[in-house]
């Protein structure tokens, strides 16, 4: 049964592979290999790369600080409306990023829901690097929460119970027993979160705007380059593709593993 895939499935499966592979092959073959190094080392690109690393790095830090506790609450907490909370966490993953940008503006913008309160605290988010970090975190944190929650749910509770019988408090157990046991999933979630933050485009453009050195990250630069210098855009795309590929190679199926354990 496992052998002998029916031909009727092979054809659409092959079409699916082509659909995914051909555009990527297009980037690789059309990239301006001749002066690739020169293009990627140009001040404009290095500035956007530096900013992208800064923004995605902060997004990862924020996601870890806020997302690990949230994942624990979702997996272990005994609160009502957990299904609703989980949907809220999942929402940014399925929301069009530009919609996320509109939502962020209406919520955290200068004229947004809590704009006045933020201003009193001296915080302005639109058109700032901090705003780009918030946009990237909004979009990418769910990847960390969901991956980690899956791992926590699948964990054998007896290890933690054993720690508790030996007098460890909840936080101690979390620090010395639980987190080390879910470390592979945590790393996988962190890598995905970072990669998603690095690729963030729509929410950043809508919420944080586009200014070189402040909010113009690599994906925004690709978009603008595409309008006047398609080869330059392809070169930067290749860079982002290589980074994404490296992340997936590093994970080697752990993302899938985490999901399989949930099922």
């Amino acid at each position, binding site marked *: *049964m496992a052998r002998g895939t*029916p031909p*009727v*499935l092979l054809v*659409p499966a092959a079409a699916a592979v082509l659909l995914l592979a051909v555009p990527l092959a297009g980037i690789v073959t059309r990239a301006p290999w001749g002066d690739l190094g020169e293009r990627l080392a140009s001040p404009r690109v290095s500035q956007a790369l530096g900013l992208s690393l800064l923004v995605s790095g902060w997004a990862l830090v924020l996601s870890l600080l806020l997302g690990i506790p949230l994942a624990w609450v979702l997996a272990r907490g005994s609160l009502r409306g957990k299904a609703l909370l989980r949907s809220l966490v999942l929402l940014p993953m399925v929301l069009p990023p530009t919609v996320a940008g509109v939502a962020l*503006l209406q919520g955290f*913008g*200068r*004229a947004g829901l809590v704009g006045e309160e933020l201003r009193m605290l001296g915080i302005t988010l*639109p*058109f700032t690097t901090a705003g780009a970090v918030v946009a990237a975190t909004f979009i990418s944190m769910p990847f960390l929460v969901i991956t980690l929650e899956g791992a926590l749910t699948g964990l054998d509770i007896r290890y933690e119970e054993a720690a508790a019988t030996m007098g460890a408090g909840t936080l101690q157990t979390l620090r010395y027993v639980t987190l080390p046991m879910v470390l592979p999933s945590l790393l996988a979630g962190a890598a995905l979160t970072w990669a998603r933050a690095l690729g963030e485009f729509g929410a950043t*453009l809508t919420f*944080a*705007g*586009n*200014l*070189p050195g402040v*909010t*113009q990250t690599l994906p925004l630069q690709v*978009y*603008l380059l*595409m*309008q*006047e210098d*398609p080869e330059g855009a392809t070169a930067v795309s290749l860079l982002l593709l290589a980074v994404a590929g490296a992340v997936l190679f590093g994970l080697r199926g752990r993302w899938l593993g985490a999901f399989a354990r949930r099922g």
Partner: protein
Amino acid sequence: MTAPTPLPRRRLRTALCAALLVLPLAACGGGDGDGGSDGANGQAGAEVTVLAAASLTDVLEEAAPLFEQAHDGVDLRFSFAGSQELAAQVREGLPADVLVTADTTTMADVADRTGEPVVVATNELTLVTASGNPEGVADLADLARDDLTVVLAAPEVPVGRYGEQVLADAGVEVAPASLETNVRSVLTKVALGEADAGIVYASDAASVGDRVTAVPLPAERNVLAEYPAAVLTEAPHPEAAADFVAWLGSAEAAELFTAAGFRVP
């Protein structure tokens, strides 16, 4: 009578898959037939795709029903974006019939893929501020104020280029908070109160009514943006496309342009 041999489960499933696969194809076939019968009613059922500069959004959407009424069987479909982005799409071979840009430079960049362009409307720049102009923005020089959040369009899009030119002519140096990718985003950021001031087309300022306040620029400081329209050489519906371009130059279209804050050549 013998009982029919039961199909093995796997074959049944395969058959189901095949049926599901073929169903949508059959549906497509039906659709094509319908298209053909439409075409039989005299005029070809042409869906004309118009790539138009973002600043034309409102006026062209208003114009579409008028044109469609006068041209039986022609359906206009619009794709609005920054002119540069549209030109890039044309260069990449996106199938479309008509291109309308917000400057002649962008149109000239794709001259090898279009017919002879015709200027169908012109536009001026204006300053916009939040409704009622709470920050008291009076002229271009105010855009250099430190306490104002100013958004401009990116120099890659025509309105950004015009804006740069106007600011340079006036000798004003602005530190923008953002270089938006099209004129509508500039307007939205000001209308939402996220930015204090921006530079947009007069027609854009007119399109949102009271949500922003326009501060006109003196004529000697302004530029005249020209909107050329052209039929694409690869247009799937060249005749209907030519009709539309010609109609954009008509008195009927001129009335719409003027009402929307544009001028006509």
